[in-house]
């Protein structure tokens, strides 16, 4: 997780937390200490939620993207391999020609290990604490880079998997649209009409605290959770 992202999430939490804290604590007519406390509490809550949800989504997205790049680079790998190029030269070429900077670094690291006598499979296994092996593995297991057929099969499997995933994402998009509409418009409208209707018909004066807490804490957190779940399903 990037440090700058964390700073941004911290700033965003304060940005969300302070006004929400003031709006929620205002109807209670408590002292300013409680206002500060509620602002602090809500900022921490938002920070926690952003880190858990957005952080997870961003990590999943970065991993999925890097895996896509890794499988894309296998076209060049296969092409060079079929041309009879040596493994060292292939890795050296890929560390320069690959479209992604992180992947370039990974190929460079594998190449430098390979140059010092480590076997290719071992170099991949040990690179970046095993994260590289996860990148270069299909649903049937790790890819054997010495065998061109294994690489072809892995590419085919990856393409089939991503194609079926895209089809299921299309279904998920329809489901998410309904949920998103429900949380953004239907549910708050019911809350508004419920609050207004009860204040017209009811005999007691309603304070705003319950309404503010529902609208500014309960519903946004539901929205946050639903968004995080649906986005994680898309990229994870």
């Amino acid at each position, binding site marked *: 997780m990037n440090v700058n992202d964390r700073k*941004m999430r911290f700033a965003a939490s304060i940005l969300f937390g302070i006004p929400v804290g003031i709006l929620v604590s205002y109807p209670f007519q408590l002292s300013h200490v409680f206002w500060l406390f509620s602002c602090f509490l809500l900022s921490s809550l938002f920070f926690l939620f952003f880190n858990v949800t957005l952080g997870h989504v961003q990590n999943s997205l970065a991993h999925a993207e890097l895996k896509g790049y890794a499988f894309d680079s296998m076209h060049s790998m296969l092409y060079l391999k079929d041309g009879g190029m040596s493994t060292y030269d292939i890795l050296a070429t890929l560390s320069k020609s690959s479209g992604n900077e992180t992947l370039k670094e990974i190929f460079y690291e594998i190449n430098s290990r390979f140059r010092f006598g480590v076997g290719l499979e071992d170099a991949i296994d040990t690179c970046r604490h095993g994260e590289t092996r996860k990148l270069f593995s299909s649903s049937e297991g790790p890819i054997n880079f010495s065998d061109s057929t294994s690489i072809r099969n892995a590419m085919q499997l990856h393409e089939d998997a991503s194609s079926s995933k895209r089809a299921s994402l299309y279904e998920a998009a329809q489901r998410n649209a309904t949920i998103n509409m429900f949380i953004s418009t239907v549910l708050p409208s019911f809350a508004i009409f419920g609050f207004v209707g009860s*204040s017209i018909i009811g005999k007691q004066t309603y304070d705003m605290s319950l309404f503010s807490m529902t609208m500014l804490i309960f519903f946004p957190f539901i929205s946050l959770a639903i968004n995080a779940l649906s986005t994680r399903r898309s990229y994870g």
Partner: protein
Amino acid sequence: MDKKIQGLAYALQSSLLLMAILGIVSPIFLIPGATFLIFGFKSKNDSNKTILLSSNVNYILSKYRLGLKNAIRSVGMEKGQVPRKLNDLLCRFELGNYEAENTVGLLSGNIESEFVWILSHGLSTGRNVRKILERFSYKMRNHIMHDALLLSKSSNSNQIALLGLVFFLPLFGGISSTIFGMSSSISGTAVHFLKWQFTLVLLSYIALVMSINSIFRNPKKTIVSSVCEIIPMFSISAAIMLLSAAYMPYVV
């Protein structure tokens, strides 16, 4: 008794004054909203995905030609030879149909760069690249077809949710807040002091949910830029809510 009537008169006067000020001020919110809507927000560096509107082939061609520049120079190929090879290639990729149907396609930058790299390498060394590039046709077709469907679906769902947040919810909120602007409800309970607080809470809710949606729609973007994206839509919803809250009492 007189003091009570005087107090009520003051409250009425001040609320009318506030409504008048808000009524004058709220159309100002429409100006940035309309400006951003007309001119639009465009991300300068959208490296994740490149949206190609009915120009897939032209886009690939331009990239392909750029990638081939060095290869052509090194091999010493005649200029006339390149288009013929390109035509063969495009027939194999069957991309012409997509252009004709005006399909919205998405291609990640990496597929194109791999494609151009292998092609230029093959041409410069004289190797046969047909076999390896046949894999691309399957992959590219898949990407274009599914991503176009996904893009249309997800953008539709976003627009529907946005319609609710920008139009319906502010309108409901504005109308509802009118009830709180009354001096008393049906049962005789005084509720008028809650009106603007109610409006403020609803506006904050809209801003919060809009920013959360915006942040999760583009997780790769920074939070600040995602939050800034909501300004046009939020200013429109604020204008609708404040206008309806300010003028609804006169209509009723």
